[in-house]
């Protein structure tokens, strides 16, 4: 297709798809180009994150669509199918292929697939600075000539080459650039085969499918293309086709080999390495970080440091946020004098505390995302999966599941969503179901508050017991799942350990900012709503908690609560934990706070003096044994609504979702009863 046909009219936005393998600096380029004009959503009908952004260059508007980072474009994973069907079906005006200059041979692989698709491609040759450090010389002009497409050398993290990339995009837009892509060629024996296949599938495949591409995909046994051809072909013809293809059982391997040969031929022409360097020297740190013994210590130290950093950043920011909320309720109660009592109460006791909770969580979530972004950006995250693989195998999982489970300490929702790094479906399902066992930050907040209140110095022992219980439940549930429900051999570890990079702070900031916004939108609004709902339930019908709807519900469940030493109030708090863990603490303040004159939630989360007075009130209400039961029932409680939603959207199975809810309800009650009776013996 000639570039001149790609010319778009002035008023229409030019659509660019950004493709590339993971760790090639795709997100850096995306952020450099679009700045704050980004939108995060989902791919239509899919659970995979879609990032789009706009930018203006030389007076024209451009729309940039970030495709999921994948190593190839097979039909093996959802991400790969999304990327390729976007290019084939949506037909963007241009595709930018991101490639890592310091790992040219492997990272060009995706270009060998992209170049077969209909959209014109520009190659963004990123990490030129790293290549230079390796004394790897790349002749960009020769590369351009060999590929027949525009090549833009870049060091995106240093903001080098971004302007040149924009220039190249504009040139393509206005058809001022040649586009004569040189496509990978197959051995002679295949040329005839492809010719034959192409003849047979002409008129059979959708018009959007390039014939060359479809022929190769048939050879590879690509499930999607095979399905389409099989459905549209006459049964007799398909049998013949199957017979032809059966002569090439290693079609996948043959196709991959041909692509790599094409890459090798090109790279031999354009890359020159200093003599004698074939394998780069590994740094002392990397040797230690991947060592079976030292690697664990490093992982532990880094994860602990990361968690502490998240706390150090998150906690003060959260209290600052809460202080702002106290000020806000003060101002509001002044403004609202003379208004109906119920309205004032709704705002001061329901809405403002809800906002406070959401804000407090936001800062904590931001801090945790910051840590994750940095670890990812410097390249350590992959090492973490690598060293934790053996330990995770004992849980019947792979190393890739470590990070999602660890992320669950922050928020189970992000943990469940993070399981997407796992490529085996069964493995992923196990990780999805296991993630809610990990107590999230909110659960630690609730249980930590109560254990420090009731057990002061003994709280350390309680925390240790909780951790032991969590590990025990992880192991038992995993065995249960693998033995009786999901029979699965381990999905296995195949992953790239990317080179280390200095963190790109702009990129880190964008990562944190975008996801923070997402959190506020989804979880934040939920928290506010729940706090409000609980306030309503506890306020109606008689403006008294003792006779409220919530109390009636709690009293209904009192027989079960009795086994755990809990009255209806604590049952309400546990039930609120189903809605959201934060709400358990919020509801506790509301439920108890209504008995006091002071405004409820701000009392709980605000100044320490009032905090203590609420604590004292709690201590007069419940026994240590009940407190212990509450802690463990909370620890094992049903995942919050957000997490249940995530489980459903990720597992796409109502059976699994309801099964998990039922299972965790039971474990919560059992844990509560056991803890209560142990508590009765001890105290």
């Amino acid at each position, binding site marked *: 297709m000639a570039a001149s046909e790609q010319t778009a009219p002035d008023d229409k936005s030019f659509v660019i798809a950004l493709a590339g393998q993971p760790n090639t600096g795709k997100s850096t380029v995306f952020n450099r180009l679009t700045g704050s004009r980004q939108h995060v959503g989902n791919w239509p009908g899919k659970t995979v994150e879609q990032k789009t952004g706009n930018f203006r260059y030389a007076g024209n508007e451009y729309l940039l669509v970030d495709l999921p980072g994948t*190593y*190839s474009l*097979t039909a*093996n994973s959802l991400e790969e199918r999304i990327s390729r069907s976007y290019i084939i079906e949506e037909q963007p005006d241009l595709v930018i292929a991101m490639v890592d200059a*310091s*790992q*040219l*041979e*492997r*990272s060009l*692989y995706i270009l060998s697939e992209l170049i077969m698709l209909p959209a014109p491609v520009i190659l963004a040759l990123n990490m030129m600075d790293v290549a230079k450090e390796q004394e790897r010389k790349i002749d960009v002009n020769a590369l351009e000539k060999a590929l027949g497409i525009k090549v833009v050398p870049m060091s995106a993290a240093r903001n080098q080459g971004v302007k040149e990339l924009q220039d190249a995009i504009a040139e393509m837009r206005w058809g001022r650039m040649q586009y004569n892509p040189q496509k990978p060629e197959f051995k002679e024996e295949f040329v005839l085969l492809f010719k034959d296949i192409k003849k047979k599938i002409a008129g059979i495949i959708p018009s959007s499918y390039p014939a060359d591409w479809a022929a190769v995909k048939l050879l*590879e*046994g690509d499930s999607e293309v095979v399905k389409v051809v099989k459905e549209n072909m006459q049964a007799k013809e398909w049998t013949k086709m199957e017979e032809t293809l059966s002569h090439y059982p*290693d079609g*996948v*391997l043959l196709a*991959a*080999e041909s692509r*790599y040969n094409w890459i090798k031929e090109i790279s031999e022409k354009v890359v020159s390495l200093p003599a004698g360097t*074939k*394998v*780069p020297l*590994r740094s002392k740190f990397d*040797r230690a970080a*991947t060592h*079976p013994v030292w690697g664990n210590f490093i992982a532990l130290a880094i994860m602990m440091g990361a968690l502490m950093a998240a706390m150090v950043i998150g906690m003060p920011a959260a209290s600052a946020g809460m202080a702002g909320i106290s000020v806000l309720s003060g101002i509001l109660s002044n403004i609202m004098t003379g208004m109906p009592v119920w309205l004032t109460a709704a705002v001061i006791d329901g809405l403002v505390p809800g906002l406070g909770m959401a804000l407090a969580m936001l800062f904590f979530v931001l801090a945790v995302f910051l840590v994750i972004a940095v670890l990812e950006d410097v390249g350590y995250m*992959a090492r973490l999966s*690598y060293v934790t*693989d*053996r330990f995770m195998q004992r849980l019947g999982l*792979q*190393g890739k599941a470590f990070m999602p489970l660890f992320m669950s300490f922050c928020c189970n929702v992000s943990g469940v969503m993070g399981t997407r790094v796992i*490529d085996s479906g069964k493995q992923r399902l196990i990780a999805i179901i296991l993630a809610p066992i990990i107590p999230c930050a909110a659960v630690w907040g609730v249980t930590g508050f109560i254990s420090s209140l009731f057990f002061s110095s003994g709280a350390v022992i309680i925390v240790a017991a909780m951790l032991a219980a969590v590990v025990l439940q992880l192991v038992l549930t995993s065995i249960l799942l693998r033995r009786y429900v999901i029979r699965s*051999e*381990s999905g*296995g*570890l*195949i*992953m*790239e*350990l*990317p*080179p280390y990079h200095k963190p790109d702070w702009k990129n880190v900031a964008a990562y944190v900012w975008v996801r923070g916004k997402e959190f506020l939108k989804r979880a934040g609004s939920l928290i506010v709503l729940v706090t409000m709902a609980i306030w309503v339930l506890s306020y109606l019908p008689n403006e008294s908690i003792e006779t409220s709807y919530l109390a009636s519900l709690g009293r209904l469940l009192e027989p079960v609560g009795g086994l755990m030493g809990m009255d209806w109030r604590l049952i309400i708090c546990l039930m609120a934990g189903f809605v959201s863990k934060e709400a358990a603490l919020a509801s506790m303040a509301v439920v108890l706070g209504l008995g006091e004159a002071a405004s409820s939630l701000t009392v709980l989360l605000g100044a320490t003096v009032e905090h203590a007075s609420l604590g004292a009130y709690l201590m007069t209400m419940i026994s240590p044994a009940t407190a212990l039961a509450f802690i463990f029932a909370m620890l094992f409680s049903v995942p919050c609504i957000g997490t249940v939603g995530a489980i459903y959207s990720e597992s796409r199975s109502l059976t699994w979702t309801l099964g998990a809810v039922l299972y965790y309800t039971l474990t919560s009650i059992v844990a509560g009863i056991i803890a209560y009776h142990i508590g009765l013996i001890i105290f």
Partner: protein
Amino acid sequence: MESITALKAGETGIVERITGGRSFISRVSAMGFTGNVEFTMLQNFSRGPLLVFLRDSQIALGRGEAEKIKVRRI
């Protein structure tokens, strides 16, 4: 033919054959493992995953996966 797991750190070899299902082969080939590719073993302790250098990249391979990659030493 031996598995890639037989090689010690620092040893070099050439991939001869990859066994296993289509989706496994597809995954490893996207990471650079195909026939006739030269690689260097970077790390191979008696247990746990291996680290292999090939096509400009460091790739970690679980032991079970590595068993399916048959190689020849050079």
